[in-house]
């Protein structure tokens, strides 16, 4: 049928390439002609349509300790065999191997512009590192699931090799990449929503078109015992910044947070402070920034002795279409700074 076979390069670690165990985990990338180990099964399934022309092998330790250099070398080695598809693993639940599979797929996809696919267990830490850029197929947690994994990977490799489109994750069975793709449908959003609602009322399964992100839960911290000797810090996602927004925090999808001194400041006035938040009507906050960051009230409570001390710095970002990942990053960084400054409690205001 196919006149010309599509060319596949396969990535394996030292163990599955049968070079050695942990004692060989430090070997740098090398290339073997043809299929090796699990690649032989892959070749069998691809049959006459595709050919595993080469196998790149690298030690897990080497890759994990030299991710960029190792990935670059994998790209070089693979490119000399002019592959149409690059496939890595399966890595199961092996963390370093998962990073190697994801990292080499990501680099090959970027540098060579060819389709890539790998496979690993859902709890492999590399999943979240690479799922956005690489098709990752779920596998069992150990090599007992090899046969099934290779079968699924072969289906992907074949589709990719023949230039067929990869459908959405619920049809194709890879880990969702968190991408939204435009598509034409026959029924309006209202009709689809009512269908979903009816299924929900009947207690039948339905598929949301907009899954909500999941948020981490943090156990509550113990209460402050003596407020009169406590240092309290102010933090806001409401975008209150010194006039002119000196650090240029974005009005939406903020990429940063900032810290500013409020030492000696008793009141946030409209000439010295403003909001840079693009997600609400700024009139009221610009008129009196204390309406978002209540410095005047906090300062008067400090003067009354109700709180020991108001911390000299406040932290601000803009919570407007800001990704959960960015928000978590800012939150962790701010918490570390406050902890290092022996702050006892935080008032966080949001608009």
């Amino acid at each position: 049928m196919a006149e010309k076979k599509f060319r596949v390069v396969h990535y394996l670690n030292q163990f599955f390439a049968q070079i050695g165990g942990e004692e060989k985990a430090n070997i740098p990338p090398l290339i073997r002609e043809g299929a090796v180990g699990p690649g032989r099964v892959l070749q069998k399934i691809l049959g006459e349509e595709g050919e595993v022309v080469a196998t790149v092998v690298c030690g897990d330790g080497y890759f994990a300790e030299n991710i960029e250099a190792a990935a670059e070398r994998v790209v070089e080695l693979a490119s000399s065999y002019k592959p149409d598809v690059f496939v890595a693993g399966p890595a199961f639940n092996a963390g370093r191997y998962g990073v190697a599979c994801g990292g080499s797929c990501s680099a090959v996809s970027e540098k060579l512009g060819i389709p890539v696919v790998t496979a690993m267990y859902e709890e492999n830490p590399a999943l979240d590192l690479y799922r956005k850029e690489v098709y990752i197929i779920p596998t069992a947690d150990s090599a007992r699931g090899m046969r099934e994994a290779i079968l699924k990977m072969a289906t992907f490799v074949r589709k990719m090799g023949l230039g067929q489109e990869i459908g959405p994750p619920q049809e194709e069975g890879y880990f969702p990449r968190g991408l939204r793709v435009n598509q034409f449908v026959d029924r309006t959003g209202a009709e689809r929503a009512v269908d979903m609602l009816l299924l929900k009322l009947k207690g039948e399964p339905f598929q949301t078109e907009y899954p909500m992100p999941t948020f981490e839960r943090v156990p509550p911290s113990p209460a402050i015992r003596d407020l009169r000797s406590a240092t309290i810090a102010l933090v806001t996602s409401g975008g209150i910044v010194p006039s002119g927004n000196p650090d240029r925090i974005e009005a939406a999808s903020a990429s940063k947070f900032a810290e500013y001194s409020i030492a000696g400041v008793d009141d946030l006035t409209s000439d010295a402070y403003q909001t840079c938040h693009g997600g609400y009507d700024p009139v009221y906050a610009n008129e009196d920034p204390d309406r978002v960051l209540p410095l005047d009230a906090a300062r008067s409570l400090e003067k009354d002795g109700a709180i020991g001390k108001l911390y000299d710095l406040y932290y601000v970002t803009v919570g407007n279409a800001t990704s959960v990942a960015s928000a978590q990053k800012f939150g962790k960084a701010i918490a570390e700074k406050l902890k290092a400054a022996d702050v006892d409690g935080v008032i966080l205001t949001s608009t």
Partner: protein
Amino acid sequence: MPVVHMASIVPISLTVGANRIVPTVAIPHPLGNPELAEDEERELRLSLVKKALRALQTEVEEQTVFEG
């Protein structure tokens, strides 16, 4: 280190996992109300911040909204 989230949209605060929540006035002015006279507005803000401080001094086992 306890944190009190002063937020106008309590369901969002609950969704993102805040443990101590004090509901506030409105999205564009959570800690103020431009319809009030200046000293009344200051009083309102002071009472909300006091409520937040009470939340920081209260032991909680789960997500708690400090109403009233």
